[in-house]
């Protein structure tokens, strides 16, 4: 009996608490969808678990989005949206980006879709991804200074760029 989408939050947290204790900080909900807040240091193993283990098989990384909270500490978080095509589940993963390093472990080893998505996050937000095979700008010219999607970067740009 495959659990329904609405029940997976609790089941997942239980499964992860048993097999990867301490990896998940908490489970949150927004508009009926689950978001797992994951410890930054445990991100890669949690991601691999979610991708490979039954009955989850989140083999599809749909989206990767940094969020700049500006005045919050830590300032940035990255939100991943995963899909399990086999079981038709969707899940959000959230991880805080440490302010000192502004760096997260790369998930290119888990999902190849993370390659360009992480490059975009680096280009526009300045978040580094340790272990990424080719972390360089993707949208803006290579000699661009600054990370424009940060909320303290003016929309119309800075003079001299």
């Amino acid at each position: 009996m495959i659990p329904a989408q609405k029940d997976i939050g609790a089941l997942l947290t239980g499964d992860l608490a048993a097999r990867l204790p301490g990896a998940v900080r908490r489970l949150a909900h927004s508009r009926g969808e689950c978001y797992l807040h994951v410890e930054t240091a445990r991100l890669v193993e949690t991601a691999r678990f979610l991708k490979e283990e039954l009955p989850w098989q989140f083999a599809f990384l749909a989206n990767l989005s940094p969020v700049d909270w500006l005045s919050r500490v830590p300032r940035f978080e990255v939100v991943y949206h995963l899909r399990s095509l086999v079981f038709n589940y969707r899940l959000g993963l959230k991880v805080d980006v440490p302010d000192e390093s502004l760096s997260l472990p790369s998930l290119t080893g888990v999902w190849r879709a993370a390659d360009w998505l992480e490059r975009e996050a680096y280009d526009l937000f300045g978040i580094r991804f340790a272990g990424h095979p080719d972390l360089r700008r993707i949208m803006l010219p290579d000699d661009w200074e600054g990370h424009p999607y940060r909320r303290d970067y003016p929309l119309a740009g800075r003079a001299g760029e």
Partner: protein
Amino acid sequence: MGLIDGRFEKNLATDAVDTVLNLGRAYSLWPVAYGLACCAIEMIHTMTARWDLARFGAEVFRPSPRQADVMIVAGTVTHKMAPILRRLYDQMPEPKFVIAMGGCATAGGPFRTYSVVQGVDTIVPVDIYVEGCPPRPENLIRAFVLLQERVKRMTIAKVPRSPEPPVRIGAHGA
């Protein structure tokens, strides 16, 4: 026409040469295939069967700027794209013309951002501005016809002249 351009006062001979040259130029203006964004789709529509820009002389869109007369800048120009736009313009042989198609090419459109050039006229001289987002094919054809009339006013005679000011076609064809 370096050898004879601007050397003779306006006379019957220069008029005759003008008529022949301008007839040839005006009715065979070949655009560079330079679609950048959404306006490019309307440009393709203008080229296809219903509106058929080819009947005005734009028989083919040349991929190479060396073989083109007019550059229809259709779409948003970003700062990353700007040097390439300039290089393509420079590669076009004289006489060459530019039609800025759409809001983005005219003035940056709705994108007042760090990455968008606020008007292609900061990079290349523009002859005709066509407003719209995107402009209807009828407007682009009108721009083309106005450009043809402008070409027919060109002369090789030595006359005091300043470059003709650009023309703006509003979104409602005004």
